[in-house]
């Protein structure tokens, strides 16, 4: 593996085309993260068609670059204008914006960038060291273990999603339902295609994603109307933290990065939950908890390090088991399948070059973010002033071209429009969209493994409770979820206290 990592570094650094792509993806992600209301998933979805035109290794790394850029961009807007660019930056707002209002804008922006990069690098290290070990264990998994992992993962994601649990579960089932359209993989017979030949391969991933996520988001942007963004008059120049800052705050970096990585590795608990959990933990661990929420640097560190550490954490189950931790990594799984690669333990034995390239790419994306954030921030912030009258048509045409570029099919464009209308109504009915996407992407995997597992046991469901790995998965998941629920419960109790 070490040799593969060195080869990956040489490939990335020695290829200007790859370098430009990584820098471009981080910059594009940062731009979409800076613009309030768009967010990480939107960024990944809109730019996804471009990454599919690339070789798989750099395609995956550009997706990670978009994630890293968008996650950091959201915090920058939170600090500067008090509007979080992404939901995961809401906790950042609590301290970063007060810092900016106290005239410490440069310090706040610097902390957002540095904490994000520290969190991202930490999780990339954990990913590099932990995932090969997990992949070795996962080599012993069979269909029943995969059914449990995918099924319980979906259940958790639907459960943890915002709003009603029932709506989250129904959203997951809806995703599974639309994944049944097309050719049944076990029998090669058609299912629910109603004589439409374009549906024989099922609904394509890109039109469904863009329809469900991008179109409702753009509609919401138009409905909200243009809000006047006033940037501070003072020079917007992020500051590097001093040595004394590192001495005082290294524990906060370590704590929050660990929480972000661990939460990222769990199904369903995404970056926004990670940042709030880390913030709550920081408040408990702080010697001056009353300072948090009033411009304490450790509050910014907690939120930003945690939400960016989710990137590497979420890749652990995604790459080793093929089970995504959230909607962003679910899209990554879909992308790997579209490239003819099945994420899972076999990837670690058969495609070590690809895995090494992903590690190196993730490190590199974080370093690019550091440079862009510290030295080239102003052009990104200038986009905050772009009128919706230009932004909306530009993004929508990009979506159309993206869908068209996959199969040059008008049917796919109509599919995007139809799922756009559907996504709009699901949003209005307060049905979370992430479980739909996870159900859609993981549906075929779950169905195949369920049928195989039940065939192994002659139809007896006891197979899921009698195999040692199955029991271990159930126990570990229960333990991990208990930790997240306990954390969330404390968080909610804290929120009630604060509100009271």
């Amino acid at each position, binding site marked *: 593996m070490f040799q593969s990592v060195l080869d990956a570094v040489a490939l990335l650094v020695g290829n200007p085309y790859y370098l430009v792509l990584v820098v471009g993806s981080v910059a594009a992600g940062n731009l979409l993260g800076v613009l309030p209301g768009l967010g990480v998933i939107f960024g990944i979805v809109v730019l996804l068609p471009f990454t599919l035109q690339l070789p798989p290794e750099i395609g995956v790394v550009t997706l990670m670059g978009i994630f890293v850029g968008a996650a950091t961009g959201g915090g920058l807007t939170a600090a500067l204008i008090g509007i979080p660019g992404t939901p995961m930056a809401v906790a950042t707002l609590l301290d970063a914006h007060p810092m900016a209002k106290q005239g410490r804008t440069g310090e706040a922006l610097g902390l957002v960038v540095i904490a994000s990069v520290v969190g991202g690098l930490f999780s990339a290290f954990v990913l590099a060291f932990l995932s090969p070990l997990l992949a070795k264990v996962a080599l012993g998994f069979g269909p029943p273990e995969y059914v449990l992992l995918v099924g319980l993962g979906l259940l958790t994601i639907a459960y943890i999603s915002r709003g009603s649990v029932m709506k989250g579960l129904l959203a997951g089932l809806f995703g599974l339902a639309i994944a049944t359209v097309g050719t049944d993989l076990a029998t090669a017979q058609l299912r629910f295609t109603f004589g439409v030949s374009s549906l024989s391969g099922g609904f394509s991933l890109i039109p469904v994603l863009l329809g469900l996520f991008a179109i409702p988001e*753009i509609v919401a942007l138009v409905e909200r109307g243009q809000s006047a963004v006033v940037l501070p008059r003072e020079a917007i120049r992020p500051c590097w933290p001093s040595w004394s800052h590192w001495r005082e705050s290294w524990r906060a970096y370590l704590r929050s990065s660990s929480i972000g990585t661990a939460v990222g590795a769990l199904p369903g608990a995404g970056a926004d939950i990670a940042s709030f959990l880390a913030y709550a933990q920081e408040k408990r661990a702080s010697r001056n908890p009353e300072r948090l929420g009033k411009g304490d640097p450790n509050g910014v560190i907690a939120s930003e390090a945690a939400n960016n550490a989710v990137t590497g954490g979420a890749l652990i189950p995604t790459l080793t088991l093929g089970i995504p931790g959230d909607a962003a990594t679910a899209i990554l799984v879909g992308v790997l399948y579209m490239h003819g690669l099945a994420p899972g333990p076999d990837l670690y034995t058969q495609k070590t070059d690809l895995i090494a390239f992903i590690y190196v790419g993730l490190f590199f994306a974080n370093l690019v973010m550091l440079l862009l954030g510290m030295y080239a921030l102003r052009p990104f912030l200038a986009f905050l002033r772009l009128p919706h009258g230009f932004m*909306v048509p530009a993004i929508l*045409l990009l979506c*159309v*071209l993206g869908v068209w*570029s996959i199969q040059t099919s008008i049917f796919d464009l109509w599919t995007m429009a139809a799922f756009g209308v559907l996504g709009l109504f699901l949003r*209005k009915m307060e049905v979370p969209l992430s479980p739909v996407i996870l159900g859609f992407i993981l549906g075929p995997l779950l169905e195949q493994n369920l*049928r195989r597992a039940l065939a192994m046991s002659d139809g007896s469901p006891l197979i899921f409770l009698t195999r040692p790995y199955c029991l271990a998965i159930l126990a570990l998941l229960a333990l991990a979820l208990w930790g997240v629920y306990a954390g969330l419960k404390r968080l909610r109790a804290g929120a009630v206290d604060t509100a009271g």
Partner: protein
Amino acid sequence: MISRRLLDLVGAGAFLALGAALFVASGPLETPGHQWMVDRGFWPKWIGALMMVLSTTMALQGWYRSAGQVEAMPGRSAWLLLASLAGFLLLLPLLGYIVSSMLWMVVLGRIAGERSLVKLLAFALGWIALGYIVFWKILFVPLPVGLVEEKLGLDYWIYR
């Protein structure tokens, strides 16, 4: 504004109808006497059944627990935006990428609040040209050619 209760009931009704449709449509896909391992109706039938159970629970929850008012229907600008998308998709095979995109971008810009037609036209032209360069010249993705473009022989000049 409509009541949250009504919204939840409508949502539950939609999921119930979808679940029932899936359950019924899966019936003919089952192969009697075959090992259900190779049965393509097994999985959708279970999904349909679960959807029916959960949507009934959602309806009951909505009836007993939901309160308050919500903004449920998309506004005028949302409908205009969706209608413009449908119009664009209908025009695309007729007028091709350049002309239909130009018209659509101008309409979208107006819906999104931009008043200056000149600025919109200039921006649309630049963005469409960029799309043409990136997709056709760099990525070699053939862009939609319209019947009108073909009749006038413009496709040869644009996509040679």
